[in-house]
């Protein structure tokens, strides 16, 4: 994408103190990687002078890192992707299972059963949770054993995986209860996951982004999910509130989601099911 040409008279001109021009031809298709080249060439020249004539280039950058080792982009991003995969799996599994009851008409039998909507919804959530756990275990195996991202805190990982699974399966059951058709559950779930993934700090702390977006994203659980998973895998703190507080917020989200889901089913029972 770029050609840097060192001219034939480079050494001789340098010794004489003459001006030397380094032609750099850049394929400037987009600003992102063009700017990388634009910064890299002057940087290489400064480094060259700093090494060759240390007395003349005295201003140097001294780096201090907050964490002892660097984390690759994929290793960071894969943790965020895991949270969104739990979200998508939970919504699809919970949503499809709940909507099928309405499509097949079997919801009438459940609603006529002498039990509370909480028990029915708890059963639906646990069933979807058991089915969803297969895909989640598969994702964990791929991340840990194939990609090689080893969690620092295994206990946190399993606790938060369970918590997030309950949250999103309950959300899925809620969506299925409200929509009552399997067909729209799928595009709805996918369409919801994509923007949520991007606003929740998947690539870096959300607070470093746009102030409005970073305020809005704190109202949904994926933001806290990514934060606690980054802590479980890399021991990172990616929110100002810290992983312990984020964990409490997630517990609250889970409780609210299960409660709303059961209330929605209770409302269905009072109003009756119409086909």
């Amino acid at each position, binding site marked *: 994408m770029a050609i840097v040409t060192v001219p034939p008279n*480079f050494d001789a001109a340098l010794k004489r103190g003459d001006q030397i021009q380094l032609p*750099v*031809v850049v394929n400037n298709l987009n600003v992102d990687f063009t700017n990388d080249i634009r910064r*890299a060439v002057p940087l290489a020249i400064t480094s060259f002078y700093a090494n060759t004539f240390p007395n003349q280039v005295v201003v140097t*950058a*001294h780096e201090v890192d907050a964490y002892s080792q660097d984390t690759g982009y994929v290793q960071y991003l894969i943790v965020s992707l895991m949270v969104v995969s739990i979200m998508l799996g939970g919504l699809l599994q919970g949503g499809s299972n709940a909507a099928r009851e309405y499509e097949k008409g079997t919801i009438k039998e459940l609603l006529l059963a002498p039990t509370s909507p909480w028990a029915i919804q708890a059963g639906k959530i646990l069933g979807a949770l058991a089915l969803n756990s297969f895909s989640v275990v598969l994702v964990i195996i791929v991340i840990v054993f194939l990609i090689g991202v080893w969690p620092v805190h295994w206990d946190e990982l399993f606790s938060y995986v369970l918590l997030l699974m309950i949250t999103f399966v309950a959300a899925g059951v809620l969506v299925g209860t409200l929509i009552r058709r399997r067909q729209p559950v799928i*595009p709805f779930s996918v369409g919801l996951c994509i923007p949520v993934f*991007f606003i929740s700090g998947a690539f870096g702390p959300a607070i470093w982004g746009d102030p409005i*977006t970073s305020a809005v994203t704190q109202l949904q659980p994926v933001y806290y999910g990514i934060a606690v998973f980054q802590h479980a895998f890399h021991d990172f703190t990616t929110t100002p509130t810290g992983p312990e507080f984020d964990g409490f917020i997630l517990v609250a989200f889970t409780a609210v989601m299960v409660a709303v889901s059961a209330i929605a089913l209770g409302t269905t029972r009072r109003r009756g099911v119409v086909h």
Partner: protein
Amino acid sequence: MLLLLAPLEEGELYIKIMSGTFSVIPIFAIVRKDIGIWLRQPWYIASTVLPAVSLLVILFFFQQAVGRNPVAIVVEDNGPHAQELVKILTNSDAFRIAMITAAQQNAEEALKQLRVAAVITIPSNFDAAFDSHRPDPVTIHINNLNLDFTNDLRRSLPAAITEFYADKNNHNLGSGNTSIVVVPRSGSTSRRQICVNRILNS
């Protein structure tokens, strides 16, 4: 295959395919029925529109994801060289300045609370060390969560120092030479010429 839309009878359109013909009325009736059902189901409308809107929203958020990260600058020296470096850092396209302070503790607190991604410290003896040609390190404390933005920050400070030296060269020599010349070429390629000796002459 021949497809024709022709009025075979008065007031009614027919489609003619090869040798057969049939009325268009059932086609439009089915379309009308499907759209009618779709319009009566808010969840269907949402599930149709949401994926498309999501993809558009991605562009906006992705731009932010690869955007500039906030950085704090601690300026402990008020000398002209230090101020010049601050000016260059402020105009950097690699990060945005969220805080300029003389108190190191405030900046480090901002780093701890994730209000900034890095703290650049220009030491109190910056000008004196520069003038006397002594080692003059500028410290950058980076929250190195992932390599993508960490590398941007790593490159940006040396790039600013390079620009700092380039400016020094122009001012000190008064040569009037343009250090960096960008000559756009046809197509999608640009040519950039960089004067190597501008630092050596300063």
